[in-house]
């Protein structure tokens, strides 16, 4: 009998260690055939940015990601799923988010990780503010229609 799906969701200021996180996800399991992961990093936008500051809604962020993760586990029959999202000031090159989905076969793992990222971008309560390399205060990053489209393409699919 397969083990119950593992759902690990964390919202934290500190950095994460990708390989340690994925090891923990699959440790002691013999039913997992593949893990797909995605790591979101802070870009410097061609040298213009000195940092991104991530604000979050502490009471809701973890809960919102967990709801998406639970849906991904049910939809793709995942063995395990992981999301670690950072908040606070993150310098270019730094980690922002890690998502990993583990399943018996690769398609479910790839789709599970992508589904979680697509929903997380538009439904998890985080906001990015830019800090500019010239010392000026930057703008809040605008939500992109393309992100809504990426999420919506999952609707109506089985």
């Amino acid at each position: 009998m397969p083990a119950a799906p593992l759902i690990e969701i964390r919202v934290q200021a500190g950095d994460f260690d990708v390989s340690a996180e994925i090891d923990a996800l699959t440790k002691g399991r013999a039913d997992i055939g593949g893990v797909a992961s995605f790591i979101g990093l802070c870009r410097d936008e061609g040298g213009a940015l000195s940092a991104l500051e991530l604000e979050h809604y502490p009471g809701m962020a973890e809960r919102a990601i967990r709801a998406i993760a639970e849906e991904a586990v049910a939809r793709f029959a995942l063995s395990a799923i992981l999301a670690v999202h950072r908040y606070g000031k993150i310098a270019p090159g730094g980690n922002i988010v890690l998502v990993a989905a583990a399943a018996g076969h690769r398609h479910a793992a790839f789709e599970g990780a992508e589904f979680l990222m697509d929903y997380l971008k538009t439904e998890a309560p985080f906001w990015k503010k830019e800090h500019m390399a010239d010392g000026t205060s930057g703008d809040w990053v605008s939500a992109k229609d393309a992100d809504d489209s990426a999420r919506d393409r999952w609707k109506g699919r089985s």
Partner: protein
Amino acid sequence: MKLIYFAWVRERIGKADEEIDLPEGVATIRELIDFLKTRGEEYEAAFEFPEVIRAAIDHEHVEHSEKIGAAREIALFPPMTGG
């Protein structure tokens, strides 16, 4: 009831949260936003385009038509940009 604001909504209003007593006739999120807009120019600036504002009642996303009911905490914020 506690109101809580994030990102540029918080910056424009100039505070992260506040306690308010809902006046008569404010039953939905949309009506709450319309009421807040009457409280001063900082609120007018935050809610200039109400249709872009997202809302959560007690940590769950809701539409503007949602009834506030016995909510303990209502959050108002811009579209999310995490990930």
